[in-house]
């Protein structure tokens, strides 16, 4: 199983730890891990295109979290997006929310996490996996992945 899938499974275990009275620390780690699962899913796909396998981990470390969610994506006709465009839009929205949750889980100790919110975060991460695996070979999806890495548009 790929590293990203392992992380997603870890996130589920962390969320379930403690049963009906989970510790905030477990919930926070579940949220953070769910984000990193989605992050590594995308990074792994990006670096897989690099021919020199030994350099891929270094390439993966060049990703910047803020840039990844800020990458612009324009739908040609906002009222009628194509199925691929709709998928990419959904993935962008889910990924950005995961990033926000991870930031708060890691740094905002004043926030109380509820199991419902954590479960919804896990669902978002699962959706990123499902959507990305459906569209990852599409030219538009690969183009957006390049943008998430920081490449400029033509």
């Amino acid at each position, binding site marked *: 199983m790929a590293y990203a899938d392992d992380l997603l499974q870890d996130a589920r275990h962390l969320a379930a730890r403690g049963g009906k009275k989970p510790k905030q620390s477990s919930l926070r780690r579940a949220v953070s891990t769910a984000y990193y699962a989605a992050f590594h899913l995308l990074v792994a796909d990006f670096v897989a295109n690099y021919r020199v396998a030994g350099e891929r981990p270094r390439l993966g470390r060049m990703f910047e979290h803020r840039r990844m969610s800020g990458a612009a994506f324009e739908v040609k006709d906002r009222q009628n997006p194509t199925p691929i465009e709709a998928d990419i839009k959904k993935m962008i929205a889910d990924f950005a929310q995961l990033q926000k949750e991870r930031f708060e889980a890691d740094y905002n100790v004043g926030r109380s996490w509820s199991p419902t*919110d954590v479960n*919804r975060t896990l*669902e978002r991460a699962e959706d990123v996996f499902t959507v990305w695996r459906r569209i990852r070979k599409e030219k538009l999806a690969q183009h957006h992945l390049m943008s998430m890495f920081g490449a400029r548009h033509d």
Partner: protein
Amino acid sequence: MVMPAAVRQQAKIRDEVRALEEELKPDVIRIRWDIGEDWRDEWAIFFRIVLSDDAAQHRLREVAKNVEQLLAERLDFPELGVFAYHNFRSESEQAALQEEAWA
């Protein structure tokens, strides 16, 4: 930083959210929101959605997706100049946590 259209259109947002709240009962108990900057310093609208215990425990994905989708349909977030974030908790979780922002 330039104010987004959402700041000027809060009355419209309030009306749309209230109407949706009514429409989605009994799964949705209430929807609270505010506008601010997110961790990236981008303008955002933050929704806090309290669900019934039944919806949260048994139909979370379905109900949450529906709420998110309907909010996006009723409020054109790109036009409003904000990115939308949605957080959820159940009625009993809110009863235990007693957070004013969710009340």
